């Protein structure tokens, strides 16, 4: 790691940058000019969010708050738990613990910094994490291992049984720094009684672990409040989803990332509800006024991302969709699999519902919700089994009227790359052109954006889509 990078506290740096960007919208012209100079590498991204209107600004503020919470945690007498994006932070909020979600931190870093998270990723390898491991954890983990972030107190991870490389990153962090560790573990099936019970047993034990680590008992009133908030958020997200279904969609591509990034950072937190409200409101207005979601004006094509998006400098990926008139109808991360959502109709038994009537009902609800977070829901079992990746992708492609399906991930993702070729083949058999992006969503050294873009262009042209 470059010595100059060692000089800055990572969280502080990020909080500062995001704060500055968020404040831009209200600043005077002169202040704005100053700030652009202060955050030169971030300007592309920040402009993208600011141009997205009130939701974008709210999102930047939310991001800043996220880092700020981490920075202030210990001062405020709170513990920090390192965790994964597919472990809902709502339980941590209910228990007064501050989440530090590696994948989110890496993605934001990759967007914000000119050099991406390269230095941190590489530092992680220096400590012994394999270079072949998933970059989404490696970035933030590198900063943590290098001691450049606020110290974390314990680790809760929920990918064992679903994604080795992810789970392994957290297990490594725990062993390397000697921090307490709890793993939620998922069976390869979903929806049957046995696995439902397993989810709950496992979740209860996790709560015991968090209680022990934080020194605070779970307060069910608090949990009830948080779940009620999640309930609202789910309904708002469902509204967004409905609007994504419209052709042409009034939802700009960049909104999809805000939906899930918000959820991964602030599920159950009123701040996220506010963000969603602003988004729904803005989108409704757009729809009413006939303003298309795409800056290109015309919607030429609709895409379902069957996995994650591409997060590198300057939001290139989202701009690309905007400019070419391609509607982004969400990725595996966008959806929440709440009962009653349209896309779960074709996926019986694989959704959850929220019931706050009793402490037990609340626990069951949150455990089942957690077991249906992105990825841990759909890539836990063989892809062609009931409710898993193939059925889910097809259900979404149908409902969102996708013209084609695109995969993007990271080379570290053994789990999806292990089945991707047959999976793509099956999707093609169902009549969907499939493009497999060969890059790393978090590390554009693996494939430059130019090369990635060329391949995308080629796909759309050769397959006669654009």
């Amino acid at each position, binding site marked *: *790691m*470059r*010595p100059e990078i*060692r000089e800055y506290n990572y969280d502080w740096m990020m909080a500062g940058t995001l704060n500055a960007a968020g404040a831009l919208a209200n600043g005077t012209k002169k202040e704005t000019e100053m700030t652009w100079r202060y955050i030169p590498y971030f300007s592309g991204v920040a402009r993208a969010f600011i141009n997205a209107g009130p939701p974008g600004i709210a999102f930047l503020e939310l991001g800043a708050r996220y880092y700020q919470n981490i920075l202030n945690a210990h001062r405020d007498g709170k513990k920090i738990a390192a965790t994964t994006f597919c472990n809902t932070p709502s339980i941590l909020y209910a228990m007064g613990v501050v989440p530090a979600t590696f994948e989110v931190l890496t993605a934001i870093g990759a967007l914000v910094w000119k*050099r991406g998270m*390269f230095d941190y990723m*590489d*530092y992680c*390898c*220096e400590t*012994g994490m394999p*270079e072949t491991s998933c970059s989404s954890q490696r970035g933030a983990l590198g900063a943590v291992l290098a001691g450049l972030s606020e110290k974390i107190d314990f680790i809760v991870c929920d990918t064992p049984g679903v994604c080795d490389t992810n789970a392994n990153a957290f297990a490594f962090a725990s062993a390397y720094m000697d921090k307490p560790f709890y793993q939620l573990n998922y069976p390869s099936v979903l929806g049957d009684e046995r696995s439902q019970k397993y989810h709950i047993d496992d979740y209860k034990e996790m709560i015991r672990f968090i209680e022990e680590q934080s020194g605070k008992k779970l307060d069910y009133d608090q949990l009830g409040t948080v779940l009620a908030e999640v309930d609202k958020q789910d309904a708002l997200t469902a509204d967004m989803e409905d609007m994504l279904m419209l052709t042409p969609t009034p939802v700009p591509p960049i909104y999809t990332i805000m939906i899930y990034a918000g959820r991964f950072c602030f599920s159950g937190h009123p701040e996220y509800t506010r963000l969603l409200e602003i988004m729904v409101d803005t989108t409704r207005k757009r729809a009413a006024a006939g303003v298309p979601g795409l800056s290109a004006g015309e919607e030429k094509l609709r895409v379902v991302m069957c996995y994650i998006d591409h997060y590198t400098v300057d939001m290139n990926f989202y701009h690309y969709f905007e400019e070419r008139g391609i509607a982004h109808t969400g990725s595996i991360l966008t959806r929440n699999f709440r009962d009653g959502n349209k896309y779960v109709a074709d996926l019986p038994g694989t959704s959850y519902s929220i019931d706050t009537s009793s402490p037990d009902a609340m626990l069951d609800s949150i455990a089942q919700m957690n077991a249906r977070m992105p990825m841990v829901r759909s890539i836990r079992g063989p892809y062609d089994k009931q409710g898993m990746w193939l059925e889910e992708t097809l259900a979404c492609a149908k409902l969102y009227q996708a013209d084609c399906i695109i995969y993007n991930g990271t080379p570290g993702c053994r789990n999806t790359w292990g089945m991707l070729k047959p999976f793509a083949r099956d999707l093609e058999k169902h009549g969907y052109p499939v493009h497999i992006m060969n890059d790393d969503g978090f590390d*554009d*050294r*693996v*494939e*430059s954006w*130019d*090369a990635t873009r060329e391949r995308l262009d080629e796909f759309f042209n050769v397959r006669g889509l654009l």
Partner: protein
Amino acid sequence: MPFVAGCDVGSLTSKAVIMKNGKIVADAIIKSRARPGDSAEEVMGEVLGRANLTQKDMVYCIGTGYGRDKISFVDESVSEISCHGKGARWLLPSVETVIDIGGQDCKTMKIDADGNVGRFAANDKCASGTGRFLEVMARVLHVGMDELGKLTARSRSPITLASTCTVWAQADVIKYINSGVPIEDIGAGINTAMAARVAILVNAVKPSGDILMTGGVAKNIGVVSTLEKLLGMKIKKARKADPQMAGAIGAALLAAHKADTGERR
């Protein structure tokens, strides 16, 4: 006093050194041939010629390098990791950490006061951490090996390159050339990709004390200077001899030790 020899048959170059009383009598370096046996004969012939000696004058001879098991005239063969450790110590007595980058391998090691190797790490991943990577890239850029190293200093904004694959990086490089990116920025990007890969390996052994680079890539000033930046440490210069010769020198020193302890043939 006895003459001893070290012969380092690498994948790209073959080196031979004749030493006496801890001093170099003669050295030679040639481009490796397809068969290591041939390379060894040739480079040894060359160095013997320069010193005006014959193979019989060598009391003990140690072979090292990629082709070490194919050299007919040596008494023994030792891995290049151990030889580079010894050689580095001779080149710079204060050295504790050695980085050796040759044609097809990159190794970093800690050495003790006698030049014995302790912890070491080697690049097992991709060809991009090797000298061969630089050669391929230099060819694409139509510059010489020397010149490639000098590009870093001239560059203002180096490109970022996939450091994971030589051949794919080559594709990116061609793309950058095509789109008119200045050659120094491309070259600097190449050196940086290489240095980044090496830095990971260096830090894996926890560098301490004086650091020395051996092997041919030590001559690439772009890689060296970027590596210094990444590590935040200075890399010492070897003045006594060409760092590319370190393996052969180490082999000769080990040979001298064998000769001293009476293990002559």
